[in-house]
């Protein structure tokens, strides 16, 4: 599918031309300036942020993170975010993989419509259901619980995951499973020993995307959690923002929470860029 080499391209920017390097410079600047600004502010003394002319590279300090740890239950928020994101990833993958296998392998009358309905349900805006969900979670005693937001978030992510995994499973030749079935292997064994290894790239891809989505999610934790035992980092950054310091908004602390939320995600994409792009693009193209 990839076309490489000295191929003719349409209206292509001439490789290595001045225009390309100018575009590259502008692109890099636009993408990285907000990131630089966040890092610089999170590692600065508060006093250095309100100096004019601006201090571009204030002497770095980890004081702000220290302040966060002492003033808010910061480690607990990190822990909650991790549990929420990892839990969501696992539940989504499990539920979606099972369904995707059904859709990809078992002829069932109307299964096309069912899959279509599942995918179409992605179009329902999440925010349009928060009021009833609030009541549902309350009735189930899952309000203000990490379990509650994990369940809701997994449901939100499942349709896209099923959709992508169906196409991954369809790429695995059926003959291998058929042989295993004839040999009398049970379904769990087929899942674990035959299908899982072959579809592992798809599972890793969707795992990464789901982890990032859950880690970044604001709507559900903001709507359904109220106590430190279940609030996530995304909620905590809004709370730090709501606070005041004598000289205005505590930007050094807000940015410190922001950096804490961003660093794990950036590390993930640095190490698994290909896998992530494959999933994002695969969902849109297939």
């Amino acid at each position: 599918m990839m076309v490489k080499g000295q191929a003719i391209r349409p209206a292509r920017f001439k490789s290595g031309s001045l225009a390309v390097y100018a575009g590259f410079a502008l692109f890099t600047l636009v993408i990285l300036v907000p990131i630089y600004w966040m890092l610089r502010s999170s590692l600065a003394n508060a006093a250095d942020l309100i100096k004019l002319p601006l201090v571009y590279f204030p002497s770095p300090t980890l004081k702000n993170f220290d302040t966060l740890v002492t003033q808010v239950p910061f480690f607990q928020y990190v822990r909650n975010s991790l549990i929420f994101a990892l839990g969501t990833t696992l539940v989504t993958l499990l539920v979606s993989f099972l369904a995707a296998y059904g859709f990809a392998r078992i002829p069932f009358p109307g299964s096309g419509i069912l899959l279509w309905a599942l995918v179409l349900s992605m179009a329902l805006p999440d925010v349009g259901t928060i009021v009833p969900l609030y009541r549902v979670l309350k009735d189930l005693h899952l309000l203000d619980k990490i379990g509650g937001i994990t369940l809701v978030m997994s449901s939100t992510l499942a349709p896209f995951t099923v959709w992508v995994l169906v196409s991954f499973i369809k790429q695995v030749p059926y003959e291998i499973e058929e042989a295993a079935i004839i040999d009398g292997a049970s379904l769990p064994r087929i899942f674990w020993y035959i299908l899982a290894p072959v579809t592992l790239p798809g599972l890793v891809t969707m795992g990464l995307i789901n982890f990032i989505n859950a880690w970044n999610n604001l709507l559900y934790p903001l709507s359904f959690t109220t106590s430190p035992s279940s609030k996530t980092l995304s909620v905590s950054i809004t709370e730090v923002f709501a606070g005041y310091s004598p000289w205005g908004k505590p930007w050094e602390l807000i940015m410190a929470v922001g950096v804490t939320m961003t660093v794990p995600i950036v590390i993930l994409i640095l190490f698994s860029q290909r896998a992530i792009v494959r999933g994002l693009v695969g969902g849109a193209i297939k």
Partner: protein
Amino acid sequence: MQVANAGKVRNGSAVPVRARPALSRSIRRRYWLFVLLVAPAFLLRLATAAFPILQTMYLSLTNLNLLKNTNAFIGLQNFPAVAGDPGVRAALSFTVILVVGSTVLELLVGMLVALLLDASFRGRAFARTINLIPWAIPTIVAGYAFRWLLDDQFGLVPYWIHQLTGIRFVAFISPLSAQLMVVLAHVWKDAPFMAFVFLAGLQGVPQELYDAARVDGASPWHRFWGVTVPLIMPLTITMVLFRLVWSLGSFDLVYGLTQGGPGVATSVLALQIFRQGILFFKFGFASAISVLLLILVACAGVLGLWLFRRADVTY
């Protein structure tokens, strides 16, 4: 009856009356397996999407309010109230402006970035990697980062503008500039994702088509409009459809950047639903706004599907 007879004949069954053709045991087992496999996903969706959305529709016809302790069926009375609410009206118009404006800009910028990332130059791998950052960074964090970047006293952008031109740029005082900032922040956040999809689309266009077009004497510009654009059109429309639907229902960036201000100039429907429902516990009223949002999403969906049918070219 035709069907029943057909079944009987096929199965060669001697039982005289049978409503349905009997399924062989292995097929029935297979069906059960299918149901078991898809059940968890469907139960989850039913409980947290289908059922709640129906409830939203019902609640929109009540005056359920946890603080006032009212809960009565009031028919369509919420809808005139929603239509007359200045906050909702402002949110409705800005939602449309934001979604349409940012989507158009994202397509443009996304295509330019894709063409850049498709060219070969030193640092391309680096460019492709950092292109993922805006997509991956938490939206709420991006919102606060831009708010601080645009801070009128100590923000980098107004500072540079002042240094270069002497103009004091205050981003969030006037409604118009606040709205523009919200649109641009969305473009920063979402255009890179479009660029990746476009890039994959560009790489998927068969090389022979370009060669053929060149043999026919098409200029690069014509090759772009004559070959690339029609071929990636279905992909583009799919992506626009997703974008429209998702951005109609999200408020994270606005929540961090402006919280809907100044006044209600940058408020969006999703933010109104969250405020009225979760902060003020006006469940009935918030549900009515949700129904309004659903109608908007349905319109966008129908429009997108119509476009998709029209543009579904096959070579």
